[in-house]
């Protein structure tokens, strides 16, 4: 799937004491996490616990204030040279982001482009692929998410579930080594959730490394290699999803799970 196959012994994502504040409010208060290649890590937690913020730190949409964050062995947003940290330039940050796919709660498809143009625009504009080549691959990706015949539709003409599947295809078109999902099904009508989860399940089965913020406990239990419960900017509990769901150790985890189950 990914261009350079990552070394299996090295974590795809490694976070050590990651902190992030907005003004005086500290939203992440020391996050430690390790995601190995081919793993699916599911993050759950109440609203405002910092789940989105942590995902956004991983592809440097937000800058962290303290701690260390590596993706595939490289510091996010900085270069270490002789014990000193140098901030990366815009195009270096952009290049690293292009290796990480992100899927948003609100889809964020480009409304002025058709579905297939949405999937093509990254490879053509960022990677410099030829239009013909990008179109061929985009068609293949749309086929894969079950939308091969809707390539010419504009996002406004697609259902929420279809839009989110196009968004997944758009992220995959960059051949990422890591996929971040921020509540990909929360904006969907209940009957459309399944089709998006199916696409994600397929991706996990192919060995994509994924971090998924979701309230779909069934997905976490079935697909997740690890489950992380966050609250108030810290990780309260992490481990085997089936064990945590069946037998949460912390009171807050219990309370939260009783609400979403």
């Amino acid at each position, binding site marked *: 799937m990914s261009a350079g196959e990552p070394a299996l012994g090295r974590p795809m994502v490694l976070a050590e004491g990651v902190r992030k504040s907005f003004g005086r409010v500290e939203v992440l208060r020391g996050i430690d996490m390790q995601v190995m290649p081919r793993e699916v890590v599911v993050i759950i937690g109440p609203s405002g616990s910092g789940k989105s913020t942590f995902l956004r730190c991983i592809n440097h949409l937000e800058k962290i204030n303290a701690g260390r964050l590596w993706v595939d062995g490289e510091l996010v947003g900085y270069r270490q040279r002789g014990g000193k940290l140098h901030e990366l330039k815009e195009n270096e940050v952009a290049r690293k982001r292009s290796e990480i796919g992100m899927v948003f709660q609100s889809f964020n498809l*480009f*409304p002025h*482009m058709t579905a297939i143009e949405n999937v093509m625009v*990254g490879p053509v504009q960022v990677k410099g692929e030829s239009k013909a080549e990008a179109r061929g691959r985009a068609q293949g990706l749309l086929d894969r998410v079950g939308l091969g015949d809707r390539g010419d539709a504009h996002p406004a003409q697609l259902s929420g579930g279809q839009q989110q599947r196009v*968004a997944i295809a758009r992220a995959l078109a960059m051949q990422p080594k890591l996929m971040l999902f921020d509540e990909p099904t929360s904006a969907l009508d209940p009957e459309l959730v399944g089709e998006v989860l199916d696409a994600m399940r397929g991706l996990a089965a192919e060995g994509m490394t994924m971090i998924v913020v979701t309230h779909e406990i069934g997905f976490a239990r079935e697909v997740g290699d690890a489950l992380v419960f966050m609250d108030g900017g810290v990780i309260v509990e992490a481990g085997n999803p089936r064990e945590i769901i069946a037998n949460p150790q912390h009171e807050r985890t219990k309370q939260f799970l009783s609400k979403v189950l």
Partner: protein
Amino acid sequence: MLYLLVALIHGLATNPNFQWGLIGHNLFDGFVLKGAVRTLMLTFLSMLVGVALGTILAIMRMSPVPIVSGAAWVYIWFFRGTPVYVQLLFWGSIAALTGQHVAVQIPLTGIVLFHTSPTQLVPLLLAAVLGLGLNEGAYMAEIVRAGILSVGEGQVEAASSLGMRRLQTLRLIVLPQAMRVIIPPTGNETIGMLKTTSLVSAALAYDELLQSVTLVYQVTYQIIPWLLIASIWYLVMTSVLTLGQFYLERHFARGATRSLPPTPLQRLRALFVRNLTMFHARQATESPTRTRREWP
């Protein structure tokens, strides 16, 4: 009421002061047409400068670098804060200055960098386009900025997460969507510009439409008919621009709405068809329009 209106129109039509015959006779005069074309050209070029400059200024204003955004702010502050007529007079006097002998030398060396001969007519058109365009840029900057701000942050994030850079995101993702917000006020600006070009006649004596007719009535004293001739052409040109604006807006509405608004032609056809079907419906009065559903 209706009588008053008819009387007014009759009065207008028969009033000898208006000299409708003269208007009809001279409406398509060569120099009138030439003036109208120059007005259009002036409008087009000034808007071109204004839109390009406005886009650059809007992007500069949103730059994270304080010097860049500050410079744009000062520009907009200055050009919006002074009357365009004064700016035109200013450019006119510079044009007049350079109409005389001007040479730019590098001090102490005697090398002439730039030289104009007294006979060389500094193009009034350039002065007019500069005056109107630089002023317009300040207004367009605000319009473009409002358009950029209207595009949701999620769009920028999605583009960034694909690895697009800031300017790439602006060009490919943000500006095309901002067009929906930018086009309507830009259409208004264009129509406003078409009329503002008439200031050029007084400030620079460049013979666009108004100046062309002014030159005539200054000799013949037939002021009202010649001003009416100019007005008719202004009306024709603004009408054409309004139509163009409609089609542009329709073009950029793609993707934002599921169905596009009908064109004036389609609207006419729909009106015609609807009347026809109403006519047919009226003939078939027997058929019930609605049946009630029966529940067991």
